[in-house]
């Protein structure tokens, strides 16, 4: 019977369970490195929006460390190029946070770092629906939407070319129509407001009362009659005062509306200037202003740099949220639905990811030739827990015969009132790749140059700068295209091909919604002067033609609108004083009668002497 006694535990199954656990351990030993390598590459690829390859990964459980070899991060904008390659990476982990499924790296050593290296096989494009893929598209679209540069790649300046404009294309026509409606509604509102005051009847009745009293001897009215008359006069005066108050309000409203109409006229004129530019664009005229030439030549290159910087700043913003609020992110990829994984950061606890300290060695030249030191610290997924910004500092000189000096500092501050990500870099002696000029049949190879770059994103505010300085530039032309080049293009080529110096500076400002970009180069004035000398006269003619085409369509409307607004203004402002004067007159008459009545009422009384 004792065998039939119910037992809670099945002790003889402990053996098979231990065997099962042993199998799990063996599987871990055999496959953990491979799985971790695949997962790390996959997660990094998804986060950065580009292919990330890891050649090897070894977990050293006893040392709580990981060795990574052959890390390559592809350039999301050029599939045949790696942005960064790292020879070896050694990661020393803090084992305690691992029990909370958190990764805290005490020390990370990165050696054999290379930048912008070629790839043997093209990188896989980012999943367009991934967060990083979307951010890349957003920032590319941002550049397209917010920046338009004047073109220098033009055909011949053709003043004979007919220019037919459709009135519907012109902003002036639309603005004038809108303003015309506003003028009419303003006039109607003014007339209705004035009519509602019923000033004429008030003035008439008040004057009639005053006249009637003037003809009456107060002594014949008796005390009650005088009292009634005084009351009537006082009420009439009150009505006049009330009407004057309303008239003043109406005057203020009218002045405000007229101010808006004047502003509307200014908007119409601004639209007209835009229409001139539009018509000018149809004639494909080059801009010969020096700042426009800088933007034509280097605007594209500038926005290219700033777009990349904004993309990475946005990625940082996405994955490093400020504050300590729960943070939702997509769940792990699996056969089952991924769902949403929520992180619940807590003060005085470990963040989900923290890199306390990292050091970088470059792979250029021998150790003796390098005085380069780079380090980064405080990189975390929850900066509010750490309470200090993530920093990267790199400084020194690398290479022997042709040394490159680097001075770089970056900071990401995602806690406190306003998050801020910034980078400042200056690299001297670096050979830069050729810069093509959009639409023009030539490019410039800056050679050994000094490159400066700065970028900052603080909330919505953008600040950026890039500059290049070189005295060893080489100009390259597509000879076949150059032979058939226009006058403008061949003139530009003649100017720049004689120069050996290149200095460009671009400055980004404003907000993400309203960015501003100024680009200047040492080529601007030289090209502008030369082009103005060559084609300035033709250009003036063409400009006049563009203006005339717009004026033909809009002048009459704008002039009529101008007259209408001015008429309304003069009529309204002239009418109000007349109305006020009539009210004043009636009030004075009534007050005179009031005084007379009061004198009569107190005539028989001896007032005490003061």
């Amino acid at each position, binding site marked *: 019977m004792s*065998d039939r006694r119910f037992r809670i535990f*099945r002790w003889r199954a402990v053996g098979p369970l231990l065997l099962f656990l042993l199998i799990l351990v063996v599987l871990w030993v055999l496959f953990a490195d491979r799985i971790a390598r695949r997962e790390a590459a996959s997660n990094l690829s998804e986060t950065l929006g580009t292919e990330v390859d890891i050649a090897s990964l070894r977990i050293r459980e006893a040392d709580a460390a990981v060795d990574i070899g052959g890390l390559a991060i592809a350039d999301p904008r050029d599939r045949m190029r790696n942005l960064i390659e790292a020879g070896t990476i050694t990661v020393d982990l803090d084992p305690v946070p691992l029990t909370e*499924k958190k990764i805290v790296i005490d020390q990370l050593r990165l050696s054999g770092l290379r930048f912008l290296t070629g790839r043997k096989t093209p990188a896989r494009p980012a999943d367009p629906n991934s967060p990083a893929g979307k951010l890349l598209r957003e920032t590319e679209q941002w550049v397209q939407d917010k920046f338009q540069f004047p073109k220098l790649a033009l055909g011949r300046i053709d003043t004979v070319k007919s220019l037919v404009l459709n009135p519907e294309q012109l902003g002036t026509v639309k603005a004038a129509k809108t303003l015309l409606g506003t003028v009419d509604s303003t006039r109607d509102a003014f007339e209705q407001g004035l009519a509602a005051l019923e000033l004429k009847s008030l003035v008439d009745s008040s004057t009639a009362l005053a006249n009637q009293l003037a003809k009456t001897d107060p002594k014949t009215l008796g005390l009650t009659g005088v009292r009634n008359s005084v009351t009537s006069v006082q009420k009439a005066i009150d009505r006049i005062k009330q009407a004057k108050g309303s008239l003043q309000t109406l005057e203020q409203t009218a002045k405000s509306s007229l101010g808006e109409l004047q502003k509307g006229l200014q908007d119409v004129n601004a639209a007209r200037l835009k229409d001139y530019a539009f018509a000018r664009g149809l004639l494909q005229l080059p801009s010969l202003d020096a700042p426009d030439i800088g933007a034509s030549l280097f605007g594209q290159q500038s926005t290219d740099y700033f777009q990349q910087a904004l993309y990475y700043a946005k990625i940082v913003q996405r994955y490093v949220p400020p504050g300590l609020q*729960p943070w939702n992110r997509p769940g792990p990829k699996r056969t089952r*639905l991924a*769902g949403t994984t929520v992180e619940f950061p*807590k003060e005085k606890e*470990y963040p989900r990811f923290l890199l306390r300290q990292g050091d970088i060695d470059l792979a250029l030249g021998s150790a003796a030739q390098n005085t380069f030191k780079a380090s980064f610290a405080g990189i975390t997924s929850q900066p509010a827990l750490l309470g200090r910004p993530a920093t990267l500092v790199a400084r020194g000189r690398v290479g022997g015969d042709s040394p490159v000096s680097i001075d770089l500092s970056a900071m990401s501050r995602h806690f406190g009132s306003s998050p801020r990500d910034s980078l400042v870099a200056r690299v001297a002696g670096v050979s830069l790749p050729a810069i093509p000029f959009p639409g023009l049949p030539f490019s410039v190879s800056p050679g050994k140059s000094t490159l400066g770059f700065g970028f900052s994103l603080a909330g919505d505010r953008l600040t950026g700068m890039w500059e290049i300085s070189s005295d060893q530039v080489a100009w390259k032309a597509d000879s076949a295209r150059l032979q058939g080049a226009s006058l403008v293009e061949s003139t530009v080529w003649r100017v720049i091909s004689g120069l050996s110096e290149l200095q460009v500076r671009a400055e980004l400002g404003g907000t993400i919604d309203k960015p501003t970009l100024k680009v200047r180069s040492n080529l601007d004035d030289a090209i502008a002067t030369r082009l103005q000398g060559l084609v300035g006269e033709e250009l003036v003619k063409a400009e006049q033609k563009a203006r005339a085409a717009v004026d033909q369509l809009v002048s009459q409307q704008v002039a009529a609108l101008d007259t209408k607004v001015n008429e309304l203004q003069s009529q309204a402002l002239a009418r109000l004083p007349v109305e006020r004067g009539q009210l004043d007159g009636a009030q004075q008459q009534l007050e005179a009668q009031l005084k007379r009545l009061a004198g009569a009422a107190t005539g028989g009384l001896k007032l005490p002497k003061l």
Partner: protein
Amino acid sequence: MLTLLKLLQSLFQTLHSEGTPGQVAAGIVLGAGIGLTPLLSAHNLVLFAAIVLLNVSFGGGMLGLALFTPVGFVLDPVFDRIGVALLDAPGLRTLWTDWYNLPLVPYTNFNNSVTLGSFVVWLASTVPLYFLAKWAIARYRASYGQKVMNSKFMKGLKASKAYNVYSWFRPQ
């Protein structure tokens, strides 16, 4: 095909095992926990250890796993909604925050909406599922059990080596 055969083998062996209907039902309930929730979570290791170590039907556990895994896939959107509602509930935020910062607990992936939702649904259904399974097994044994037990298929099944391994986990 082999998987299907093994499933059948497990099913029949479970239904005719020497375990009481209660032991088989308890196994099914624990197996359902593994089947309903996403597999790679620490709590499933605990559930598996419970099926092995507790005196419940191991076959019942495997049967529960086999039956409820497809159910889990189908109900994932429901689990997700329940999980999101629980994780976003302001009243529970302190609890989740404490758990998130405890050792080992985060390995259960409780902070994933599907894992939490499916686990909560499983937890809520354990008692009704236990009684339903217990009733169904008792009824089966009373009506069809003996006939199936004497069938050639079942005799062949019992003669196989797999049955010997299975018998290690047979309820006592």
